[in-house]
């Protein structure tokens, strides 16, 4: 049988040699809802951009109905009946819904006919059971309506294959539910849908088959009814090796970080953190688990001073740092390994040496602000050796190193800053196995050195093998505080993460 779409050995290398997809293979059948899941940075969006003609393919082939596709722009993709709803809306805010519908169409007349446009839009909307106000300007529409308009736009261009890139990320549960009903309706009409998400419950609810991507490589395609959410999450995170460390006995002493009743609401007025309180003491590793998007990133951003809470306090070493600047928080004694190492963790064009010293450069300069080069060089050489960074020398640009080595440089910088609290956000994401176990050993070393460590990770295995206590976040709240000795199981963590199990009386 012929597949509607077949992706064979597709590789994509971005400028600067970043490998986003490597020999990706998967097929899509006509009339199915096919989910594409994977962590952030697994290469989902890149793959879809290639399917839609937005990015060119470095090597490999894409076939549709047996015919090879060679797109030079998204127009070609639209002509082949492929439509895409992007993560961020591609609508013109100042135009009405009907005007957005007509944009870029060939058959429109030179002089626009507003009344006719609105009629057509309403007709199409009615045909597919979508409820939108075609005469309203896009900027006055709700997020849910914008989403529907995007899909209608694609339907009106007679697409047979619709790609949806995390369509529910900005929707409320009710809007999501309505959208899913429309999807199932479209499926009945013979439409094929590729649905990208990392919300596993949604994927499980509406998809027929699931393809898992990890680190730019396909991990396989499964029938949705054959796999559980836990199975998918294991495949997404991947666990080729199990970490089993001998943790030395360390008695936690005084409290270093105290978070009390923290609250945060994002710009869509969605509460992201609703009253979180916890403590981290010297000599313990506190892990934070949770399905992505349940408030962990926001929590870390607030603790590290990169975002401001709307309510609640953060204390570091007994000092209120809720409203302090990042620089002052660091001086008070916090180190931070950020989630996205290429954006917040390093300056890719600068050298390893410069990246190693950025947050503590003032300790290397004399009172005139002059950098003591000898001291810096010696420090860098020592760190490169101690952290086993594979680089030509300290003057190589950090962007040319592999992910694992970049991460080691960042970890070296933060761990050597001599602070009491280490905040580690996904410290081993997208890093090779060797670097993972090395970074883990360093984290445990820091624990023995009596540092307080807050660890956020999507890798449950990592959390379980390192943490002394694990806090589970669900919908902006801590729903479980688990003592990790004896070790908790991934299954139990999973139950809390999905909100199926809850401890009462937590913040």
């Amino acid at each position, binding site marked *: 049988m012929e597949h509607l779409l077949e992706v064979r050995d597709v590789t994509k290398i971005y400028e*600067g040699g970043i490998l986003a997809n490597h020999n990706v293979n998967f097929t899509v059948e006509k009339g199915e809802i096919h989910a594409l899941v994977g962590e952030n940075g697994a290469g989902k969006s890149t793959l879809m951009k290639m399917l839609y003609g937005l990015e060119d393919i470095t090597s490999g082939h894409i076939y549709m109905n047996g015919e090879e596709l060679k797109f030079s722009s998204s127009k070609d993709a639209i002509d082949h009946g492929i439509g895409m709803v992007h993560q961020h809306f591609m609508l013109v805010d100042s135009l009405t819904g009907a005007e957005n519908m007509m944009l870029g169409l060939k058959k429109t007349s030179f002089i626009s006919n507003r009344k006719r446009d609105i009629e057509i839009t309403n007709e199409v909307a009615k045909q597919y059971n979508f409820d939108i106000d075609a005469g309203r300007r896009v900027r006055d529409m709700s997020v849910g309506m914008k989403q529907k308009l995007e899909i209608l736009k694609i339907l009106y261009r007679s697409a047979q294959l619709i790609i949806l890139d995390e369509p529910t990320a900005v929707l409320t549960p009710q809007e999501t539910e309505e959208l899913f009903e429309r999807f199932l309706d479209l499926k009945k009409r013979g439409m094929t849908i590729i649905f990208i998400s990392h919300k596993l419950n949604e994927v499980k609810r509406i998809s027929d088959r699931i393809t898992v991507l990890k680190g730019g490589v396909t991990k396989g395609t499964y029938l949705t009814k054959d796999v559980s959410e836990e199975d998918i999450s294991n495949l997404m995170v991947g666990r080729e090796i199990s970490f089993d460390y001998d943790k030395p006995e360390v008695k936690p002493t005084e409290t270093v970080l105290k978070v009390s009743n923290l609250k945060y609401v994002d710009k869509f007025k969605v509460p992201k953190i609703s009253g979180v309180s916890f403590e981290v003491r010297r000599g313990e590793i506190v892990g934070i688990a949770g399905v992505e998007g349940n408030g962990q990133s926001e929590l870390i951003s607030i603790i*590290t001073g990169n975002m401001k809470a709307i309510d609640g306090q953060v204390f570091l070493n007994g000092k209120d740092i809720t409203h302090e600047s990042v620089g002052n928080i660091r001086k008070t004694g916090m180190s931070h390994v950020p989630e996205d190492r290429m954006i*917040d*963790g390093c*300056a890719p064009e600068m050298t390893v040496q410069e990246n190693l010293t950025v947050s503590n450069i003032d300790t290397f*300069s004399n009172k005139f*602000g*002059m950098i003591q080069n000898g001291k810096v060089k010696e420090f860098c050489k020592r760190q490169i050796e101690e952290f086993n960074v594979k680089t030509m020398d300290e003057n190589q640009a950090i962007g040319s190193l592999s992910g694992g080595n970049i991460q080691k440089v960042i970890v070296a910088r933060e761990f050597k800053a001599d602070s009491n609290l280490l905040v580690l956000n996904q410290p081993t994401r997208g890093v090779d196995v*060797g670097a993972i176990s090395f970074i883990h050993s360093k984290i445990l070393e820091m624990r023995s050195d009596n540092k307080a460590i807050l660890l956020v990770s999507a890798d449950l295995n990592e959390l379980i093998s390192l943490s002394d206590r694990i806090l589970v976040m669900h919908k902006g709240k801590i729903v479980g505080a688990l003592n990790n000795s004896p070790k908790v199981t991934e299954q139990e963590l999973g139950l809390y993460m999905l909100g199926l199990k809850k401890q009462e009386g937590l913040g």
Partner: protein
Amino acid sequence: MEKKNRKKFDIMNYFGAIRTIAALLLSMLLVFVIILFVSETPGLAIQKLMLGPLETKRSFFNVIVRAIPLVFTGLGLTLCLKSGIFNISSDASFYMGAVVATAIAISWPLPNIVHQTVLILAAGIIGGLISMLPVIINKYTKVNPVVLAIMANSIFYYFGLSIISTFFLEKSGSWGSYKFPDDARLGTMVKGTSLHYGFVIVIFVTIFVIFLMNKTSFGYKVRVTGSNPAFAKASGIRTGFIILIAQFIGGAIAGMGGAIEMVGVYKRFQWQTQTAYVWDGLLIYMLANGNPTFIPLTAFFIAYLRVGAEIMSRAADLDPEIVTFLQGIIILLVASQRFLYFIKKRHDQKVSLKQAEAEEGGAAA
């Protein structure tokens, strides 16, 4: 094996420099071809263009004098651009620096040396403050700083011009201010040439900028902020403050450049048209690949071409504007990121595929 790897890597490290030189050579070649077509004495024209400045001592020192303001704007732009803001208001700083210098030179009698010092420093401060404006206004209005900078260039040109016309215009003969007193001018350094003591100052300023950018924690913070502002912020650098100070220093250097050019080369203020030093500064900055160490070199190169073109136009049947054409091509080639880019792209792809395969091999084993 290891040695071979090292060598290969080094070549790609110098990719930027090789590309710039290739762009220079290619554009020179193009200009030669054009000269061949339009000139009746192409041999003489090319010879005068390339070697003219070396023929007399006077013309050679002329090249240096022409290079001095270019170095000032180039260095000033280095600080502004390195902080990540495309603040090209150096022309405003430069012009106002010259106006301030004129005002102090004419209306404030001071002893020799003190007079020059005061007027150069005052020009620097005014230049620095002007250069901060685009960033400050941008913070409150969110108007693109490039637009603000270009507007500032226009506004301060007319502002400066009206100051000169209103207060310092000599009402006789051609347009110009009163003459500067001798104790306000920078004296001639080498007899029989136009080289003035601004040359010494430019050397000091160059060393200062190189030192500031490469050896101090401030310069380091500027570079981090320009290279990745999100990272700088996450590392606790006060990016807003750093950017502002960088603009001040950059503008101050441009302002001092304006003052030095005015009292070094001219006897009275005569700039009735808008100066265009910022575009020259950008050209020099780009040719130097943003490295302050190379700025005197690239400034000398551009000044050399200009003096050469003038000598050529006197000797042969060509206009000196041919150099403007040459500059255009150089800018186009240096600025176009895709020029010779395929070499780097191919190299990068090979490296990352190799890496991926090695990692997969490692994971399988």
